[in-house]
């Protein structure tokens, strides 16, 4: 019986302490500075057997005002658009998922490290809802209409992978973004304005390019890959001539073609895509099969394109 008295007396004294001064009697840690005035009003934040509930937090911290207005006037408050967007758009998680209390009176101790993984997938996919104001104003980002997650990931923002399909029709205008990346060599300098990189390059891998010389002319032992053998004008690689070797003198070529009844033989690669004379286009098709009757006999010609 004596033991029971001790038990009951202690219990009553303890309950009295909890009721009159709960902060000193049972609080598990120092409250943050902003909540200091609530220290003996546990139920302002807590619900019985439910902990600190979000609804009670929102009674003071209105979602639409978080980051924009201080809860209490006169406090040291720095507006933050980021905080506002974050709290307005992420509504599916409880406040206590990110915010701690009873951990000390400094603000930093009351915030856990944020992870995008705690947000619902549907919210996480709408990056711009929170991050739109951070979107770069450069040409690329202005063109892209997709959500950031299409190229970026939340683990490492700088490790972005651009899917050029995101650019829509603008994908074809490489120079919008890549003009500065264009090499200063003769080949690229010879490209006319408006000619697009995509003619030779792909967006999935810039190197190697898809430029295929065999579409224009097949190299062989007598026609090696030395560019300056044929591209002699110095005005770019679209210009070429076949009249620089002993085999292809202008007079000899003219005589040979005229003998065949071919009047227009100025653009050699139009018919000769290799050094194999017999493989020339139209060979054996009779005179009617020969193209063109132009009298232009300029020694240098410009490619008319590799595709037939």
């Amino acid at each position, binding site marked *: 019986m004596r033991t029971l008295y*001790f*038990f009951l007396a*202690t219990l009553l004294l*303890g309950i009295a302490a*909890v009721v009159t001064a709960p902060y000193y009697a049972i*609080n598990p*840690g120092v409250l943050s500075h902003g909540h200091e005035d609530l220290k003996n009003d546990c139920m302002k934040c807590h619900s019985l*057997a*439910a*902990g600190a509930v979000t609804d009670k937090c929102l009674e003071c911290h209105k979602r639409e005002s978080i980051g924009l207005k201080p809860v209490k006037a006169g406090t040291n408050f720095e507006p933050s658009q980021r905080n506002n967007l974050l709290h307005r758009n992420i509504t599916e998680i409880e406040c206590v998922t990110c915010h701690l209390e009873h951990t000390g009176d400094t603000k930093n101790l009351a915030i856990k490290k944020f992870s995008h993984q705690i947000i619902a997938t549907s919210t996480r996919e709408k990056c711009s809802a929170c991050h739109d104001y951070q979107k770069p104003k450069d040409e690329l980002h202005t063109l892209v209409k997709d959500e950031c997650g299409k190229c970026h990931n939340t683990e490492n923002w700088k490790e972005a992978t651009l899917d050029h399909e995101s650019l829509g029709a603008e994908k074809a205008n490489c120079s919008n973004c890549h003009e500065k990346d264009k090499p200063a060599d003769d080949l690229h300098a010879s490209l006319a304005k408006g000619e697009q990189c995509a003619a030779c390059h792909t967006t999935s891998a810039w190197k190697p390019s898809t430029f295929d010389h065999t579409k224009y002319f097949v190299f062989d032992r007598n026609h090696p890959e030395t560019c300056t053998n044929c591209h002699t004008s110095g005005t770019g690689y679209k210009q070429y001539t076949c009249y620089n070797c002993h085999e292809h003198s202008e007079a000899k070529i003219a005589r040979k073609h005229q003998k065949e009844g071919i009047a227009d033989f100025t653009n050699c690669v139009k018919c000769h895509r290799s050094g194999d004379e017999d493989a020339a286009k139209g060979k054996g098709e009779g005179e009617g099969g020969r193209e063109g009757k132009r009298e232009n006999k300029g020694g240098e010609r410009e490619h008319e394109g590799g595709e037939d």
Partner: protein
Amino acid sequence: MNKILPSVLLFTGLIVVSILIDLLLHSIGIAWIGRYFGILGTALIITSFIYSLRKRKLITAGQPKSLLNLHETLGWLGGVMIIVHGGIHFNAVIPWMALFAMVVVIASGLTGKYLLTEVKGDLKDRVVELKERGFTPEEIERDVLFQSLLVGKMQKWRKVHMPLNAIFMALALIHIIGTLLMWSWR
């Protein structure tokens, strides 16, 4: 000295082991586990009270001697768990008073262990003395004499141990109920 040494070592060990576990948890960054040590420690201590139920004949299963050993072992282990759970944080009065009361109860229990050893020694000495004085074994083993010796010292100890235990239990109960009411269990 030999009789009191085990109790002193057990009490020192309680404090040292608790500090070492706490240091270990902090050093590997899992101090939060200490929160759950509170539940584990409470469960161990509650289990140790099986001895008290047996002693008061509220249950009949088990040998009192074995259950006393269980009471001592689980009480000590539960004590370690609770000290780690409390850590060295002075946040609220009631949890700290409960922790302090528990340490006092364990110290009291170890004092009881020492007293029991001493009483057993006294009985042995008494048997030797009675034998030398020519008493028959039947006379020596008169339970009345032995029991009166045993009950005398242990009864005085129990008068201190049980109220201390009651104070500890009341404070622990407030702490547990307070936590259950304020914590989020979702």
